[in-house]
């Protein structure tokens, strides 16, 4: 929980990692390049006092994680979304330790797993086993991952549909999707989010959480999420702009609130890419700059509470919110944040 100015915020960090990118675990030069690239993200957007050394960044301890997320980071609950990256790392990028930690801290940690639809029937059986073993409520998919001769896949591919049908059957409701960047050449755009449009329509009982709110294709994400009520946006990678470029961050969050509304935006730090502590503190303090408020309405405290935790709870209802940390009144429809004054209607029947 985070408290500021008499307000209490229930915090769910919807996307974090327990990774091992140590030299010993790197399979090849790509393993080194990958973590160096992540490190540049970390260094470029973090306040100076939160920047780790590259050595520490490559592999951090469970104690470090628990301190950063729960003691310093205000989280009430946090969700692992592991990435396999078996082509780069001997034992994979994400550590099995995350599952151990989730078992030891069931009230504070949720473990999501991953699948790759290109594994066909074998992978489908594996998904059934994983669902039982991990009590899966969500999965993380990385559609641009290189796999054999494949250049990545679309969630609208037939095999992906077979897996999504299996998710529906197994009660895995939350599909976290990470689009791009691809490490292998594609003659189309690896960040393209249009496949989400199809599967969100065809699987109305599943929730599709597009990580990084579709950046660098924010507009396409917004457009799709506007059409599909089961498409959500995770703020990882977007929210750190709050420190380096607050006016730009105002535009991003302003666009998101305009297009998809306050109920479908999820806070996530992408730890250890960024430390949640400063992200949360700055977001609670944040307001649309006055000279931009003609364009974007000010952000309300209730909107911040939803984004920082309550929206994630609606996707993961096993997370219990203590009395007093819910909104005081039932949430208003998010469309209330958008002016109804308008010129021409579009798509009117």
């Amino acid at each position, binding site marked *: 929980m985070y408290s500021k100015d008499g307000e209490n915020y229930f915090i769910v960090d919807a996307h974090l990692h327990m990774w091992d990118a140590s030299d010993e675990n790197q399979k090849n030069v790509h393993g080194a*390049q*990958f973590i160096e690239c992540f490190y540049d993200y970390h260094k470029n957007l973090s306040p100076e006092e939160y920047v780790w050394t590259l050595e520490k960044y490559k592999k951090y301890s469970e104690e470090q994680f628990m301190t950063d997320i729960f003691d310093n980071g205000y989280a009430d609950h946090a969700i692992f979304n592991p990435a396999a990256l078996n082509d780069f790392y001997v034992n994979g990028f994400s550590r099995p330790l995350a599952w151990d930690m989730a078992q030891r801290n069931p009230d504070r940690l949720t473990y999501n797993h991953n699948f790759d639809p290109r594994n066909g029937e074998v992978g489908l059986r594996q998904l059934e086993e994983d669902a039982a073993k991990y009590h899966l409520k969500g999965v993380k998919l990385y559609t641009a991952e290189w796999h054999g001769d494949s250049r990545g896949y679309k969630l609208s591919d037939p095999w992906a549909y077979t897996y999504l049908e299996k998710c529906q059957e197994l009660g895995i409701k939350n599909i976290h999707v990470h689009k791009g960047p691809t490490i292998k*050449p*594609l003659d189309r755009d690896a960040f393209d989010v249009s496949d989400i449009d199809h599967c969100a329509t065809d699987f109305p009982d599943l929730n599709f959480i597009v990580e990084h709110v579709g950046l*660098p294709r924010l507009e396409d994400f917004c457009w799709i999420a506007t059409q599909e009520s089961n498409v959500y946006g995770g703020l990882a990678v977007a929210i750190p702009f709050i420190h380096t470029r607050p006016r730009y961050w105002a535009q991003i969050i302003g666009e998101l609130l305009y297009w998809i509304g306050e109920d479908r935006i999820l806070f996530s730090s992408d730890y250890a890419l960024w430390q949640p502590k400063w992200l949360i503190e700055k977001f609670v303090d944040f307001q649309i700059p006055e000279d931009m408020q003609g364009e974007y309405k000010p952000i309300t405290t209730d909107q911040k509470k939803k984004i920082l935790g309550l929206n994630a709870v609606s996707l993961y209802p096993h997370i219990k919110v203590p009395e007093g940390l819910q909104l005081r009144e039932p949430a208003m429809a998010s469309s209330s944040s958008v002016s109804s004054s308008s*010129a021409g*209607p*579009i798509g009117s029947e």
Partner: protein
Amino acid sequence: MNDSAPPGQRNASIAVSDRPSATRSDDTASDRAAQVASALGTVIDPELDEPITDLGFVTDQRIDGRRVAVRLRLPTAFCSPSFAYLMVSDAQDALSAIDWVQDVTVTLEDHHDADRINRGVAAGLGFAGTYPEEAAGELDALRRTFRVKAHTAFIERVCTIMVREHHWTVEDLGSLRIADLPAGRPSAGLRRRRADLGLPSDPDDLVMVDEFGAAWTPEAIPLKLRFAKAVRISIDGNAHFCRGLLRTRYSAAPADQRPRGHESLGTDLGVPAVARHQVIRQDRVAAATRTAIR
């Protein structure tokens, strides 16, 4: 590498002046260095809609007689190979088009697939030839997708200027013509992006047109402008991110970057808000809308 001097001002080889007979007599060393820099200035990062020279991606240009060699770098080792390929091959084409140039070497460095891209471009293999296993075709459709985005975003940029500084109202923008645009960046910038899509720019041509040159209908204008703003914000954000990453990766990079030109075009057009519910799908109706807006 020498990161301290801006592109175009470094490493113009002294050898040029040693062999004047090999070139036209009015081509001095600095003229030719400027020609090379100017050619590189036409190479655009498709995602960021900015010249690679402004982004600090050019680290070195050398001229030796009729030979030109340039080196390029990108913000991360994992920047998309597709876009990396486009920039390397566009640089190759732009330099080859200079009349006195006979031999061009473009070298992408510090990228996970640099060797393959450099070899493919040097051998003129095309993208499909460079990636025979992975690529299903050339990058024309990908390039066009991003030209459409760049054009869409630029319409919003120039409309902002017209409303802010030239007393146009949003309602009137549907009749805005090329001839109405102030000379300089707004006009030249829009014409360049139209040309990239194969659209002419006659003085009487409307500004608010789609990628095929069809005018936006008056009733569609508010929503299309609103979406164009989202496109612009997305492109700008990506540019901030990539520029920052380049500076993090190369400590001397700030000296090679020029301010993002688009910033001076202004932002924040006071387009009246379009109610979001107007674009929310009722059954499949919006599918047609979506096609129309893209």
